[in-house]
């Protein structure tokens, strides 16, 4: 469990905020790494591994900062490998299983379209460390968005089958996208402290990007406004995360205090 003793309200929120960023990168990076060697083409194997690699690199930066803020003498690795699912703060969207390449790239696209304007805003964060990490991650996110958009457009427009599969992926994942814009007290505190942007602004930018590119992809935006929640505040993850962590954490949990 993460305890918040000896911390002011603001520093609690900052830790929570930084953990969310780190866990998003870790969980999505892990999902992408599950593709290893089984992509639909060699170029895609390389690109999937590259995306995973970027995200694990971002995880290292965010979780190292979270560990410092926490002040309990833990490392980024301790946070990644020794926390239980209930302590994770990733979006539910990102723990969704890969299912097929269409789901994987749609999940990536919906997240990238958020991550690009979000990180761009963070580059002028009042917290210098947050700004630095965002600047470094932002370049990668822009490239990820370019790639995931191209694929969503191509496969949405491609054949009858690829269109159907991309529409299925969009329909299935749509109700998870809204959690990115659910504003809670941490988001409000971060916005008030000029550390992070107003999520309403990011939502508007996300809508523009997503609508325009899904139109190009000839995909229909689902009508539903229902939003699955519980990942970013850790209140209720889905069953998928526990299985992911059981795999990911097995060595650290089985052989605690070892050096690898």
């Amino acid at each position, binding site marked *: 469990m993460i305890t918040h003793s000896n911390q002011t309200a603001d520093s609690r929120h900052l830790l929570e905020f930084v953990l969310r960023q780190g866990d998003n990168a870790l969980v999505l990076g892990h999902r992408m790494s599950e593709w290893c*060697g089984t992509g639909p083409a060699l170029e895609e194997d390389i690109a999937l591994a590259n995306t995973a690699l970027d995200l694990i690199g971002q995880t290292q930066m965010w979780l190292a900062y979270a560990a410092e803020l926490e002040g309990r003498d833990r490392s980024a690795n301790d946070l990644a490998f020794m926390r239980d699912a209930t302590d994770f703060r990733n979006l539910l969207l990102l723990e969704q299983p890969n299912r097929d390449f269409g789901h994987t790239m749609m999940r990536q696209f919906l997240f990238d379209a958020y991550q690009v304007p979000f990180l761009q805003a963070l580059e002028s964060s009042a917290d210098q460390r947050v700004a630095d990490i965002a600047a470094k991650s932002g370049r990668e996110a822009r490239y990820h968005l370019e790639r995931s958009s191209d694929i969503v457009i191509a496969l949405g427009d491609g054949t009858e089958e690829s269109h159907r599969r991309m529409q299925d992926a969009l329909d299935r994942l749509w109700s998870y996208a809204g959690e990115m814009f659910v504003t809670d007290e941490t988001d409000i505190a971060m916005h008030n402290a000029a550390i992070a942007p107003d999520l309403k602004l990011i939502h508007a930018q996300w809508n523009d990007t997503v609508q325009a590119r899904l139109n190009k992809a000839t995909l229909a935006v689902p009508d539903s406004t229902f939003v699955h929640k519980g990942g970013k505040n850790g209140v209720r993850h889905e069953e998928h995360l526990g299985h992911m962590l059981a795999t990911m954490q097995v060595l650290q949990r089985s052989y605690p205090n070892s050096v690898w």
Partner: protein
Amino acid sequence: MYAQMVKSSGEGVKTAGEMDAQERAFQSRIDAGEKIEPKDWMPAAYRKTLIRQIGQHAHSEIVGQLPEGNWITRAPTLERKANLLAKVQDEAGHGLYLYCAAETLGVSRDELFDMLHTGKMKYSSIFNYPTLTWADMGAVGWLVDGAAIMNQVPLQRTSYGPYARAMVRICKEESFHQRQGFHIMMTMCNGSVAQKEMAQDALNRFWYPSLMMFGPSDKDSVHSAQSMAWKIKMDSNDDLRQRFVNATAPQAEFLGLTIPDDKLAFNEDTQQYDFSEPDWEEFYEVLKGNGPCNRDRLETRQRAWSDGEWVREGMMAHADKRRNANQTAA
């Protein structure tokens, strides 16, 4: 490395007298150390042997992602996860260079994949062994990449230009992978009792399969002579194997690990290590498809390919539509 038992013409090396004028000119270019380029004339058997060799090498890179992919999701730290991801990504990149090199000989990547998936072409026997603990990620880097480097460094001077150039890039990355693997082994050997046991166990399981990577003894390798005359094979299997043992034995000692061979000892007379041959029966069984992972590896690749069909078709269809739209607009 990753090319074993590559068939050549099977008819032995032609003497100068048996060659026609074109073949003689070709052989003298090779003897003079010139590179053969894709548009140059070459004997059909040279082309065919190279396609087999480069194809087998490329397939090995691709299938070789799988035993390591088996541990990417369980890597014990973020740094190790990132290193392993980068390594596997390099391997996919090596596959890409090599398929491109093979394409210059007139065979497409799809054709080569088809030959892999239907079992007409092989990949290195080493990838039919399972990776059972994290120490195997160390052993694979240290021994398997180490063995690969032994063979690939000389191949940078191979006679076929595109292959030689691909090899230059590949060798740089492989030696980095080997160091990374050795570092994992070192960390495990300096770690807890359980970690050191894992390291020893990994060496026990990977030692002989690594020796097999060089292929059977020269006296049993019917295709070597012609490939060596063409400079698409630079050293004999036995020479490379000996070089590998000479380099690796002191490293094992440094790690405090025991190579699972009672006969292994430094011979003062030859200034080389004596060692036991691997079990060649096992080697031939693995080549026939009876290794512990042959079926799983091939099925994984076949499934990846068939699951990806709709993606490749979708991408192509979209590209066609765009091309048509551009033509209409123009």
